Each structure stands twice: as structure tokens, then as C-alpha cells.
């Protein structure tokens, strides 16, 4: 382990199979799949509840997330904490932790951060409407053959190709 250079990423098919086994373990041991955006929703509902319990209770969607269980015990929040730490350990072992802002050659740091934040916000809206994101809908529901999840996959990838084509200069 003398070299500190970032190691290349692993084979996509093998990591895909590993990811599939993790998903399978989630089905078998937890009775549910993986998720990411749901944890954001729970944290958001928790934040609203902390500042104004009345407003949180009056909103059916926040209330739903509060009733799901106590904040720190919420399955998805704990799982997402695991994701962050697991990713960090994996990146650390492969010398891939770098403080950078990844961007295309023709994009400024400021432009990239603005696109990332606004894209994130738009994605948040979509995930709320669709009741999940790439993890909770596409992966989890996709493997369980849910019709809504495959509808989501079609919509998301279709739109992503159009937007990526329109903004193709940003990453070249």
C-alpha cells in the first residue's frame, strides 16, 4: 500500500451484483428495499415539527412522515447514515477521498455548484411526487416488478436524456 493514488473503480457488473445482494438482504431481513429520498422527507418533517409542531401536524404529508416512527429510529434515516459512512470508508480505503468540486472543463465552480443545488431541488420535488427516487423506486420497486416504479424509471431516464442533450456542453 505504498502508492496513495486513487485506485480505479471496480467492475460495474460485479458491483451491480453486490448491490443486488444488498437489496435482496434488505427485502429478506427488513421486509423492505433501499431508499434515500425518504430519509430527506423524514428529516424535513422532523425539522418542521421542531420549529412548528402545529404546521407539521396540519400538513398531511409531514404528519405521515412523523407518524412513521421516532426520528432517530426511522429505518431510512439510519440506513442513509450507513450509506454516508460506508461510502466514506470505501473511498478512504481506495484513496478516493478528495475535496474537489467535480465539473466539466467549460464550467466554473460557481456554475457547477448552482446547477447541483438547483438540480437537487428539482429532484427533491420529483422524488416527493413519485414517492421515491432512484433507490426507493427504480431499484427497490423495479426488482419487485412494481408498475409505478417502472413508470418512474421510464419518465426519469427519458427526461434525463433530453436535459443532458440540451446541456451537453456543460460536461464536455
Amino acid at each position, binding site marked *: 500500500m505504498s502508492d496513495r493514488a486513487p485506485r480505479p473503480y471496480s467492475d460495474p457488473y460485479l458491483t451491480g451484483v453486490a448491490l443486488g445482494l444488498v437489496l435482496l438482504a434488505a427485502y429478506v431481513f427488513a421486509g423492505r428495499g433501499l431508499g434515500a429520498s425518504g430519509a430527506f422527507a423524514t428529516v424535513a418533517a422532523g425539522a418542521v415539527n421542531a420549529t412548528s409542531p402545529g404546521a407539521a401536524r396540519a400538513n398531511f404529508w409531514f404528519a405521515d412522515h412523523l407518524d412513521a416512527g421516532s426520528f432517530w429510529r426511522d429505518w431510512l434515516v439510519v440506513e442513509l447514515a*450507513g450509506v454516508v459512512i460506508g461510502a466514506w470508508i470505501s473511498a478512504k480505503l481506495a484513496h478516493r477521498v478528495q475535496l474537489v468540486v467535480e465539473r466539466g472543463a467549460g464550467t466554473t465552480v460557481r456554475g457547477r455548484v448552482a446547477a447541483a443545488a438547483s438540480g437537487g431541488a428539482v429532484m427533491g420535488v420529483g422524488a416527493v*411526487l413519485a414517492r421515491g427516487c432512484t433507490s426507493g423506486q427504480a431499484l427497490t420497486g423495479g426488482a419487485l416488478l412494481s*408498475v409505478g416504479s417502472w413508470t418512474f424509471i421510464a419518465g426519469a431516464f427519458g427526461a434525463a436524456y433530453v436535459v443532458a442533450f440540451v446541456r451537453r456542453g456543460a460536461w464536455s
Partner: protein
Amino acid sequence: MMAFIIGLAFGACLERSGLGSAKKLMGQFNLTDLAVFKVMFSAIITAMLGMFWLSRFGLVDVTRVYVPETFILPQLVGGVVFGAGFALAGLCPGTSCVAAASGRGDGLAVVLGMFAGVLGFGFVLPSIETFYSSTSRGALTLPTVLGMSQGGVVLLIVFAALVGFVVAEWLEQRPGTPT
């Protein structure tokens, strides 16, 4: 505790495959690096085949697994909005957390933007509650809609994915495609 361990493994898988990198994810949409498709569909077919065979041998009870409910219109519209945001951000919710964890500032920006989006839209949602819960179909699955056996649908998806992998390899090998 289980949730945390599964999360650790999930995060590590995403990181190792490189999906914590916006550049790599955008390669999918510019058709230069199709790792996203390969990882995602390898995972879907692995979990799908695993579920099918485990339940076939009675080792797991599928009625105990939560199948995401279908709400056709909101999920289609949500998918389109999500996809647009995805291409703009270059990362999805799960991978933005991975990106942020490996030190990427753009990942952190996506995480914060995402949180703002979820929080803000949460306040708007009650006014469009009718749309949000419209076209609801319950835990509807593809075998029911297509009128096929579950095994038949599994076969269809696995072969579509395998053909997709061959096409993906070909796209990446095209002359003029940077590796």
C-alpha cells in the same frame, strides 16, 4: 442496527462502482460511459432473481415484503421532474450522499438543494393532494398488467438487460468515445 449495516453496504457498493462521481453519471446520459445502466440493471436482475427463487423454494415470504404502491400519473410526472433534476445535478439522492461523503463539494450542494426541494414542496403538497393521490392502483405489479406469469416477466427483463449490456459495451467501444 440492520438498517445501518445495510446502509453501510449500500454506500460502499455505490462508491466502489464510481456512482459517487457526477462525471461518471453524466457519461450515462451522454452515452460515453454506461456504468449507471450496468450497475443498476445488474442489481435489479440479481435482486429480482433472488426474490423469485427464494420465494419459489419457500425460503422467504413475499407477502412480508413491502411493494411500493403505484400511482401512475404522479409517478410519471414525478419521474420526469426527477429525471430533469438528475441530469442538471449530475447526481441522484443516494449518490449525492456518496459524493458528499467522499469529499465532493458538488455532492454536498445536491444534498442541500435536495433537502430544500423536499422541504419546500412538502408545504405545497396539500394544495395538490388530489393529483398526488390520483390514478392509484395499489401494489400493482407487471405480471398482473401484462397477464403473464411472474417467471415470464422475470425472463423478459433479464434478457432485455443482457441485450442492453451488449449494446452498452458496443456504445463504449465506438470510435471517438473517450474511455
